[in-house]
């Protein structure tokens, strides 16, 4: 039996070393910050691997303070400044964000004395799913700690948890698969984070899906990278079954996280911002799959009720558009199960721009 364990130890160690060396998840991409800082109005940041989106957001917030700021995950990441309207818009979406990311960005705004007039916040269900954890926010941990005033013990615990998540990420199939694909492209075709001026030329030369982030923060795909509608529909239809964003494992709404979100939004409002809460739109088949599961549907209803109550209590606008029918998005208008393509993103942005900010409810006793 010892051979069994020896074989497993050897294979898994080799995979760990391979993934750590290649770093396809972009845990170590320190080059992003200077690139983002000097990104020009006509330039796009591209990369054939994931990279540290937090560094990008930090650099752009330090470069200029936006009038309109979008916070949330990639589900709101396809909305461009032109769709939102206004000249000074930053879409600061992040990959797999958590509450800690919101806290860190709030602290960045505080440190930079940046006061956006309008902040649009996309609240995905996974924000309040206790089963969803992420270590990515650790790259902005100093800001997050500054926000919550964390002590040494909680810092140690967070570091330990982060270390474990990073360890498991490097033993994951997806990481290994992406690493092998990257390697298969060959060193000459591999493109780490870099700035390109002519995206059309870049797209014509590149046939592999890559990360493309524009100066206003929104992301896009080259036309050649788009999945066929049938494939998108299959991905959307199995969103729950595949437990994407731990949806199927979601047992309850995390009131602790809701309270933290409320706290962050309250601070942003206190600094003069008008807040718009959005439940991002998903693919019609994803939405159908979510509603088909009675337990998930009930949790979503709870979340929407909680956000609606928060919005009316604090005087935020609330745009509940998870259901694509509410804004008229159709199956062909999505990149995958939960990322609206430009046509749908435009409808989403239009709906947000119509959002009415209600007057805050009077405080108790008044």
């Amino acid at each position, binding site marked *: 039996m010892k051979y069994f364990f020896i074989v497993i130890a050897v294979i*898994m160690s080799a995979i760990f070393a391979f993934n750590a060396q290649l770093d396809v998840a972009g845990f170590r991409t320190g080059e992003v910050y200077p690139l983002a800082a000097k990104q020009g109005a006509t330039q796009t940041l591209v990369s054939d691997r994931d990279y540290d989106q937090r560094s990008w957001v930090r650099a752009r917030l330090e470069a200029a303070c936006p009038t309109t700021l979008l916070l949330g995950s990639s589900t709101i990441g396809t909305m461009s400044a032109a769709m939102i309207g206004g000249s000074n818009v930053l879409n600061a979406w992040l990959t797999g964000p958590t509450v800690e990311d919101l806290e860190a960005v709030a602290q960045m705004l505080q440190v930079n004395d940046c006061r956006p007039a309008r902040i649009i916040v996309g609240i995905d269900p996974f924000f309040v799913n206790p089963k969803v954890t992420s270590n990515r926010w650790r790259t902005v941990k100093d800001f997050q700690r500054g926000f919550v005033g964390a002590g040494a013990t909680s810092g140690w615990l967070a570091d330990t948890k982060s270390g474990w998540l990073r360890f498991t990420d490097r033993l994951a199939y997806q990481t290994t698969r992406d690493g092998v694909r990257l390697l298969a492209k060959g060193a000459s075709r591999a493109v780490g984070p870099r700035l390109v001026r002519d995206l059309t030329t870049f797209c014509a030369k590149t046939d592999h899906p890559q990360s493309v982030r524009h100066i206003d923060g929104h992301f896009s795909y080259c036309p050649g990278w788009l999945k066929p509608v049938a494939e998108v529909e299959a991905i959307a239809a199995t969103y729950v079954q595949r437990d994407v964003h731990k949806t199927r494992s979601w047992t309850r709404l995390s009131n602790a996280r809701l309270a933290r979100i409320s706290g962050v939004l309250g601070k942003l409002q206190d600094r003069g911002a008008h807040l718009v809460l959005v439940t991002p739109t998903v693919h019609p088949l994803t939405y159908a799959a979510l509603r088909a599961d009675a337990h998930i549907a009930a949790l979503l209803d709870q979340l929407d009720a909680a956000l609606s109550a928060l919005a009316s209590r604090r005087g935020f606008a609330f745009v509940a558009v998870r259901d694509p029918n509410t804004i008229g998005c159709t199956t062909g208008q999505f990149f995958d199960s939960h990322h609206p393509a430009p046509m749908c993103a435009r409808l989403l942005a239009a709906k947000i721009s119509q959002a009415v900010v209600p007057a805050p409810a009077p405080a108790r006793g008044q």
Partner: protein
Amino acid sequence: MLFNSLEFLLLFLPLALATAWLTKGTARLVAICASSWFFYAYTGEAWYLAPLLFSSVLDFSISAMLPRVTDLNRRRGLLVLSLCGNLGLLVYFKYWSLIVASVGPLLAWITGAQVDPTATVAEVLLPAGISFYTFQTMSYTVDVYRRRLEPAKSFLEYLAYVSFFPQLVAGPIARYSELGGQFTKARHNEVRPAWRTGVGLFAVGLCKKVLIADRLANAIDPIIFELGEHGAVTCWLALIGYALQIYYDFSGYSDMAVGLGHCFGIRLPQNFDSPYKADSPSDFWKRWHITLSEWIRDYVYIPLGGNRGSQGRVIATLITTMGLGGLWHGASWTFVVWGLYHGALLAVYHQLRSTFDAAPIALRRGVTFLAATLGWVFFRADTFAHASTWFLGLWGGRGLMTGYEGSHGSLAALALGGLVIAMAGHNAYQTDFRAWKPLRWVGLGIVTSAALLMMNYSSTFIYYRF
């Protein structure tokens, strides 16, 4: 926390094994109970422990009283109290939504009142494993009531029997007569781990789950979601794929549970015995989810009359028992129909036994596999409308090749491979891991490494929701 997660394999399991084997006597049982409760709370929610402890305390107390009570009516009263307590838990957590959703429209139909289509039933979260451990605790009380079992002398040993984490969430449904004595021995330091068998069974189960069941699920779920767009070929592919997925998923889980038991020196009962090699509907139920089949036989079928009485009575008992067995699986009428369907199969087999058993073995196996596979439509379909769409597709009502894509070829290959293993290969329990040569362990190590790598590309077990 799932068996197929790195948290379980690298953090929880080594710690649980170390605390169990580094402690002795009572401390060992305390360690097993504590790690089991931690596992259960971490897998779901901390409050899941409340119904678990309620059921444990209720049945331990009632069973402790039973031998001292001689009056038959009082004995029956105590038994009814136990059954009401456990079934009450099941009704509240598992069947409440179904009852409200079914009774409301029925009453409205009788009284002629209007049903509010927008009315929703408050969602009750189902604690994982409640169907399994309540059946264990009920069987314990019934056995004590029937004087077939002495009540447990130690509450700790009884708690270990109910809470033992390898079988807590999805079985096997063990009897106290099988496990109680083993936990007594564990307390007296008289059990030894069977590492080779334990590790071998666990590894095989993990590979079945991650490398076969989950890959099949990824291929068939998109088809099942939109069955209305598929013709006969893809509908049959999805059905055979699901028959194999549920087998590899649940038997994989059971192999892992039994393997973990061996690592703690506890022998859990076998739950599967190559069910797709069955040569009759009756044989199928002796090989599929064995511990549930035996539980239903002993505590439902026989008390309802069993094989006694007229043919009509036996058939009615069979069908009723299987209908209840179907309902055990989930709060949906589709599960009841699945159970009734199997009851009808058993009844037909009961009537035609001599003719059927005279047929060639290959034919009997083929017919049994086909019949069991068709039944999975009711098990997997979300609604009866979904099931009828599936049947229509199987029948060719939407054409033969409609919706067939090139990628379905890989599903066919995967299903064929899975089918060959299920029908022709040895099962894990027929393998003597203690006699394995190093080369076999190397081979299993390579395949297990693939499973470990694919684990976070995996999903929960189908039977976790029952």
